[in-house]
């Protein structure tokens, strides 16, 4: 449980600062510090056990289907990092309290910082690959917030964006790599993965997995060629840089290398990829750290260089090198955090970080000078400090490597060159800032920083000295435990001491220090040499690349999505043709094995009429009314076809819908132009005709192929169980209201929504009302013909009776809620047509929206009702009752459901048509009225 506390307390801590206000800064900092402090105490309580060899673990199942568990562990490697994160994190909280100005929103800053701390702790303690990745991405996101904290600065925004883009993309690659590993091993559990090195290395997927994982680790740890984001991230407030780029964010990458070392290392691929990348990065970073002019940028490049060093050590496939790498992680975190803080102090007190303006600050800030000198000496690898120890171990390891075979001597030489450069830039950092004359062009007179601001640096400097002086006492324990965990076996025995006697590594260290001094003295020649290269701004290059990408995608969007419906239709149809055409080509013969039925003359005539009407609808489309009439012929013929092929329910529905559709389209046509202008170009028409013909051909072939093949339908189940299970003889209706009642519920909901949508669309619609037809003839003065009026009135009760009949018998004979609803709707619409909207509304004085909605409600409630009896949603029950005169009537809950369907259909249909009719008549310029 304590493991969960360590991770979650800082998360809780991200909420606490917001309890405090920006004015009460002490309170805010204290509130923030409380949670990590408790977490640190919890960790310290666990520490003796972990050093003794225990590995506390904790696992909850989270998303078992994805193999994701909330699993945490605290082994030696985790412990080392947890102590670094929490320890340095607490110092940063103190430092930031005095660094941030009044204008900065302190609670927000602390909240981001705590969020970042949680995600970092999550990475190092995760015991599940996917969980690790999740926290990994969280660090990318929260570091984006931190780097871009001063969001009013363009550099901060761009730097944050760049960091997010690079590390975020690396994170995606990492996910892919981890999933591959998970597939190779069969689980995402960390321990199982770490124990399956042989399986992983033997798998053909090893190389892609390794490449993807390394991509993630290298982007995070700013390894060449992804180093460019780190210097840009220096736009962040200095406490952020001190935390992210010393102990945490960039260390996540090397942590991953250490964590997965037991599972992935040992191969030639690992050796070359990791160690050479590290070596190149080390030299690249060291060179630029010597060249740059901004204090923080110098430190950023030196961080890149040191990360390269650590990466190289992990790549060497040697156990001792792993120990050296871990030791350097610890040492680098201490001296680099301290150095960043001194840079922040200088910036804070002098208002600039430009190394050309800063000189001789020791007069103003002697304490800071001393601290910066100590920590920079550690960075340079000066004896008696911790940096010296790990650097010497590194140099010793490069002498042993099998890398490059016969050219293996190159590695220690290059490592020594890297160390020379490190010594040179460390010297430059201290001497050019704090010594060497007097400051020039400073905006304000610098003075020593306040004690609380210096305190964190002091603590870290003391740690540097203690580890440097007493390594065996202070570091061996934690380091051995961490190495045990990183190697999943007992680490080689570690003899940390300042003095190993005269040997080659010592000589290399001496060369590094002396060489560094000489390079520093001769640095002007180097600068002159470097000026020959054109300066390249990585931010501008990156932004340019992003801009080009955006322009390219914008071009893609503009080309594909140009706002033309015709274009979209074209793409949809072409894709549909391609897909179905392909599958049609896949079958051997179009005709299947079923025998073909003979066509009778009546059928041929019907088909001919349908085809003719369909083609006429298309070819006469510019004369819209004729086209519409042709359309209605097709609809009628479809209805007849349904009747012919034993589907009376469909025939009835199609007939009723046909009537409603034609009325609707006629009404709409009243407001739209009566004729379509001739505007399609000849080539467009040819294209469309070809496309339509191709489409028709594919549809016909598909249909024919389907019809001539035996089908394996699930309908037998419905036919068998319709009477026994649904209590109805009309299988279609039973399917609608019982077997597949949930589908129907969805469909009537859609119907109701469409009705309401149309109601809103028609709201306040003002349209031009033609007062004559297209040939200029006025409308007939007899608006409501007498015959139609009287016939429709006498028809109404009949029609309603019929609809009730159809409704009631629907369960056992053709009919049902849909059809009955349509019949009712048609009868009512006839009243509107015959008498006009005003007349009908006076007599039918109810709103249709509530009817449709209550229909859906009844259907839903019927379904819910079955819960009351302990059955699943929409379970039906039925019984037969004998009612005098009417006969045997079956009452089923399905009938109640059907009533809902009925009401929805009536309500929605009338909502559509009656509202449209209202637009027609409310302010129609009638000739009659003009006369009157």
């Amino acid at each position, binding site marked *: 449980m304590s493991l969960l506390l360590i991770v979650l307390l800082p998360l809780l801590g991200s909420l606490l600062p917001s309890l405090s206000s920006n004015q009460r800064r002490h309170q805010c900092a204290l509130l923030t510090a409380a949670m990590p402090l408790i977490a640190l105490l919890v960790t310290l309580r666990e520490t003796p056990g972990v050093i003794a060899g225990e590995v506390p673990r904790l696992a909850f199942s989270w998303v078992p289907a994805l193999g994701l568990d909330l699993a945490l562990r605290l082994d030696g490697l985790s412990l080392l990092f947890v102590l670094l994160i929490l320890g340095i994190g607490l110092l940063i909280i103190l430092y930031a309290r005095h660094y941030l100005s009044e204008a900065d929103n302190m609670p927000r800053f602390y909240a981001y910082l705590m969020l970042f701390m949680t995600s970092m702790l999550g990475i190092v303690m995760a015991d599940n690959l996917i969980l690790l990745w999740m926290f990994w991405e969280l660090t990318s996101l929260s570091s984006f917030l931190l780097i871009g904290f001063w969001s009013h600065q363009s550099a901060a925004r761009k730097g944050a964006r760049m960091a997010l883009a690079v590390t975020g993309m690396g994170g995606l690659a990492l996910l892919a790599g981890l999933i591959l590993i998970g597939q190779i091993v069969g689980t995402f559990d960390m321990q199982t993965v770490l124990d399956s090195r042989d399986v992983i290395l033997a798998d053909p997927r090893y190389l892609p997995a390794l490449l993807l994982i390394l991509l993630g680790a290298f982007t995070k740890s700013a390894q060449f060629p992804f180093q460019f984001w780190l210097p840009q991230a220096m736009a962040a407030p200095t406490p952020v840089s001190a935390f992210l780029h010393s102990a945490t964010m960039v260390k996540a990458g090397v942590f991953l290398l250490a964590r997965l070392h037991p599972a992935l290392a040992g191969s030639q691929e690992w050796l070359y990829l990791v160690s050479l990348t590290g070596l190149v990065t080390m030299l690249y970073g060291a060179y630029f750290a010597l060249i740059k002019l901004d204090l923080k940028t110098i430190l950023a490049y030196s961080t890149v260089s040191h990360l390269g060093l650590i990466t190289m050590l992990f790549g060497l496939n040697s156990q001792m090198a792993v120990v050296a790498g871990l030791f350097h992680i610890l040492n680098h975190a201490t001296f680099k955090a301290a150095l960043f803080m001194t840079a922040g102090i200088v910036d804070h007190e002098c208002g600039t970080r430009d190394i050309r303006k800063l000189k001789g600050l020791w007069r103003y800030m002697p304490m800071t000078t001393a601290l910066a000198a100590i920590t920079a000496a550690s960075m340079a690898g000066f004896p008696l400090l911790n940096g010296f120890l790990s650097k010497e171990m590194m140099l010793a390891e490069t002498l042993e490597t099998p890398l490059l075979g016969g050219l293996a001597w190159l590695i220690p030489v290059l490592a020594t060159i890297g160390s020379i450069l490190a010594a040179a830039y460390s010297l430059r950092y201290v001497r050019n800032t704090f010594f060497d004359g007097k400051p020039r062009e400073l905006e304000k007179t610098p003075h020593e920083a306040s004690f609380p601001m210096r305190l964190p640096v002091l603590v870290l400097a003391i740690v540097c000295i203690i580890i440097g002086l007493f390594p065996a006492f202070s570091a061996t324990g934690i380091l051995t435990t961490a190495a045990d965990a990183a190697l999943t076996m007992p680490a080689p025995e570690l003899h940390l001491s300042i003095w190993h006697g005269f040997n080659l590594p010592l000589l290399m260290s001496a060369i590094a220090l002396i060489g560094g001094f000489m390079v520093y003295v001769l640095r002007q020649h180097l600068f002159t040499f470097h000026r020959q290269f054109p300066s390249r701004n990585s931010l501008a290059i990156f932004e340019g690349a992003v801009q080009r990408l955006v322009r390219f995608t914008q071009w893609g969007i503009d080309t594909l999505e140009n706002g033309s419906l015709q274009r979209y239709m074209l793409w949809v149809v072409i894709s549909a043709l391609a897909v179905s055409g392909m599958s049609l080509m896949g079958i051997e013969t179009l005709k299947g094995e079923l025998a073909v039925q003979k066509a009778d003359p009546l059928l041929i005539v019907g*088909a001919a009429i349908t085809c003719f009407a369909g083609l006429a609808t298309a070819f006469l489309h510019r004369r819209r009314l004729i086209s519409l009439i042709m359309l209605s012929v097709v609809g009628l013929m479809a209805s007849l076809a349904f009747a012919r092929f034993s*589907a009376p329910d469909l025939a009835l529905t199609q007939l009723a819908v046909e009537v409603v559709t034609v009325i*609707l389209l006629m009404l709409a046509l009243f407001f739209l132009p009566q004729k379509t202008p001739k505007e399609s170009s000849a080539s467009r028409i040819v294209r469309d005709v070809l496309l339509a013909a191709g489409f028709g051909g594919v*549809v*016909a072939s*598909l249909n*024919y192929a389907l*019809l001539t093949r035996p089908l394996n339908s699930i309908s037998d189940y419905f036919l068998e169980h319709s009477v026994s299970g649904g209590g109805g003889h009309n299988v279609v209706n039973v399917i609608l209201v019982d077997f597949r009642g949930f589908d129907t519920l969805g469909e009537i909901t859609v119907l109701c929504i469409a009705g309401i949508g149309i109601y809103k669309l*028609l709201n306040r619609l003002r349209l031009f009302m033609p007062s004559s037809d297209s040939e200029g003839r006025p409308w007939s003065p007899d608006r409501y013909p007498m015959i139609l009026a009287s016939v429709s009135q006498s028809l109404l009760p009949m029609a309603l009776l019929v609809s009730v009949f159809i409704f009631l018998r629907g369960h056992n004979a053709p009919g049902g809620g849909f059809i009955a609803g349509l019949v009712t709707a048609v009868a009512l619409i006839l009243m509107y047509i015959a008498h006009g909207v005003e007349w009908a509304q006076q007599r039918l004085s109810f709103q249709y929206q509530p009817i449709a909605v209550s229909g859906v409600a009844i259907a839903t409630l019927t379904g819910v009702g079955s819960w009351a009896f302990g059955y699943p949603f929409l379970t039906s029950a039925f019984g037969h009752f004998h009612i005098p005169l009417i006969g045997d009537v079956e009452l089923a809950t399905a009938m109640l459901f059907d009533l809902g369907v009925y009401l929805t259909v009536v309500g929605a249909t009338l909502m559509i048509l009656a509202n449209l009719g209202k637009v027609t008549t409310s302010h129609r310029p009638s000739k009659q009225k003009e006369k009157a």
Partner: protein
Amino acid sequence: MEALFATTTGILAASGLYLALRGRTFPVVVGLTLLSYAVNLFLFSTGGLTTDGAAVISDDASKYADPLPQALVLTAIVIGFAMTAFSVILAMRVRGDVGSDHVNGNRVDEPREDKS
């Protein structure tokens, strides 16, 4: 009979698609309606073309038409109507607000054929 049915479906689909590719709203709506007839016939035929099948379950019926496509098509017809209604009224609204009945919202000069 199958070939006849398939041909009819194909011709209806082709006519509907041709109309749906036109530039004015009304032909597009008519085309979509025609297309939905074709699709309904197609869907219906997936259960096979049964002549003289019994509509309801009874003991003396020898064969039944496949009820499942029928149920699907029945709701499809009603939903199709809702869709037609929605699109045609959307077209009217667009004409009221934009002043054009072109599907791309182009403001083309309408021939004022409906001048009084």
